[in-house]
């Protein structure tokens, strides 16, 4: 994709909005960071590459201004979900879509380069990445260091946009494989699953990065994880409380999670929290045939009800 074209779009959009949110280079060669452009001269800082991992759409609900926003295909589902739930005024958002060929997972790259500081990252046209550290260059395929969500991505081109920075790309992934990892995990026995999650959640430090980075966690400052009334979770740092928080987080996202994977990406303790949300999404798909954040006119199943649900048997007892 041409960066010049993206910069031109941002320059044009900036004339009609208060701020455009895109990406700029972060503290080292491996990290991009959100860039809030309010003046034309800031447009030069804008970058686009597989380093642009953050889901910027999450900022939309907290901004009262007119906003231009750069989104990848996956991020765009957040905007559609916001529209379905009435959480944003679409007239105040200008969506700049980027057809995306995949991003990288910082954690996977760091694991490969043994957590050394990264001095330079080069992306080849053939889908390779060369990561330079003090110990030398490491060459890897982008596909081996991509986050899991890219492996099953059905929407490389944003599902909603006002401007598109490049020609649309069609997904090459099989829709039947989207929940393959969930099905695989489901084969474990209940005891095995319990053990798995106990081990993972034991590392949780309750920093709430997963919650605060989640674009659909709209309760934020009123989250029941911290309220004293109701007092559902104590401040004890034990497995029970940690699990309880994560279960509530997951269930509050039933039929709402757009699978952007931010919760898992931001976890400083490497807990695969997105797995829970994906499992619930697979159930929502089976029960209601619903996929979050795809069509603006859809109604999220938890925001409505039918007296007789087609796939739920309990009323027919």
């Amino acid at each position, binding site marked *: 994709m041409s960066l010049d074209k993206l910069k031109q779009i941002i320059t044009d959009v900036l004339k009609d909005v208060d701020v455009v949110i895109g990406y700029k280079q972060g*503290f080292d060669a491996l990290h991009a960071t*959100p860039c809030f452009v309010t003046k034309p001269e800031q447009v030069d800082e804008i970058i686009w590459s597989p380093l642009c991992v953050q889901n910027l759409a999450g*900022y939309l609900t907290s901004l009262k201004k007119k906003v231009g926003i750069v989104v990848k295909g996956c991020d765009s589902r957040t905007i559609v979900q916001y529209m379905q739930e009435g959480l944003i005024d679409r007239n105040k958002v200008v969506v700049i879509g980027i057809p995306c060929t995949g991003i990288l997972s910082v954690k996977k790259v760091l694991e490969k380069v043994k957590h050394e500081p990264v001095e330079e990252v080069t992306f080849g046209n053939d889908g390779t990445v060369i990561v330079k550290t003090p110990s030398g260059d490491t060459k890897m395929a982008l596909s081996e260091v991509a986050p899991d969500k890219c492996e099953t991505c059905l929407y490389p081109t944003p599902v909603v946009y006002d401007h598109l920075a490049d020609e649309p790309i069609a997904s090459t992934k099989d829709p039947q494989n989207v929940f393959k990892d969930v099905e695989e995990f489901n084969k474990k026995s209940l005891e095995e699953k319990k053990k798995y999650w106990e081990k993972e959640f034991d590392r949780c430090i309750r920093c709430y990065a997963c919650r605060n980075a989640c674009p659909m966690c709209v309760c934020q400052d009123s989250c029941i994880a*911290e309220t004293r009334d109701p007092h559902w979770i104590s401040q004890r740092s034990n497995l029970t409380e940690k699990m309880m928080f994560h279960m509530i987080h997951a269930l509050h996202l039933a039929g709402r999670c757009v699978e952007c994977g931010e919760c898992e990406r931001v976890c400083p303790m*490497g807990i695969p929290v997105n797995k829970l949300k994906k499992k619930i999404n697979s159930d929502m798909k089976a029960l209601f045939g619903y996929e979050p954040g795809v069509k603006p006119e859809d109604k999220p199943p938890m925001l409505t009800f039918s007296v007789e649900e087609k796939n739920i048997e309990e009323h027919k007892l």
Partner: protein
Amino acid sequence: MADTGFIPKEKWGAFIEGLSAKAQVWVPCLEEDIVIFRPYSKERVICFDRPANTPPKGVIFPQSDTLFSFAFTKDPENPQKVMVELEEKLDFPKTIIIGSRPCDAKGFLIYDRPYTQTDTPDPYYKGRREQTTIITMSCQSPSPGCFCTAVGGGPADKVGSDILITEVNTGYFIEAITEKGKEILQQSGAENGSSHEAEARKKQEEVHSRVQDRFCADGKPKISRDLFENDDFWQEELAKCVSCGACTYLCPTCYCFNITDEKTFEKGERIRSWDGCMYTHFTLEASGHNPRPTKYQRFKNRVGHKFIFYPEKYDGVIACCGCGRCIRYCPMSVDISEVVSKLQKQTGSASNGK
């Protein structure tokens, strides 16, 4: 008695095992691709290759700590009279932390001033602190985002540690710094270290030269109060923050806490748990008023505490050890070193941070 020693690589495991017979030993362990301090056992996969994701602060200042338990009992003769029984536990086991980094060790010194060097020392912190010996590993390489030299530290800084260990080609060079450290060294059966000292010093200097000086050559950054008080600056710098607590919980020097009573009908416990100034609830008052309602005001306070208020109170000591965790693990890559750097450059100016 020599204050240095040497343990060859093949005896390193036995050294840790030996210590674990004398005290509860905490070591950085690899779980998935995360390094986390855990109580030592033979089954653990110990990892000294890089700083742990979380500092060892929880060993001395647990994420949640029971201050005391309480129980209410009604007087059967006089039902209106309720008696309260309190029970506190103040005996702490001998503890050794192995594999903290110089920045982690320095973190405890930041804790010490408000928690022990006051007229009313905190018995829980003080108790654990006195029982704990800190064995630090000097860094073999800088980590992404770290900047210890800019805040007066270094990858082989001895301040705050009882022992400093530097990995050399064939083993580990040991320097005992405090009396506690000397005692451990003496009992460890370590070889004479003098023949390895030159190699260790060379390595320490080499790593020191590789740490990025992100904003301050003399290690004493000075912040412009004018710019610090300029809210536009903070609003602009912090627009991307999501106001989670990763930076505070991963920080070796962040020492704020919350106190809650976790109870059922007739009994409960008073808990002290970590709290973080980036949460909106942190300053929420009972009236509903919140003096720091926005994320940029909260981050302003975080930077202010570390670089202005704490130094003002404690002889110019900066309450940041430069470990870089808040940068490395920030969901949005908010970079405190970049912010402090900008605050320095504008000394004496009231412009809005451009």
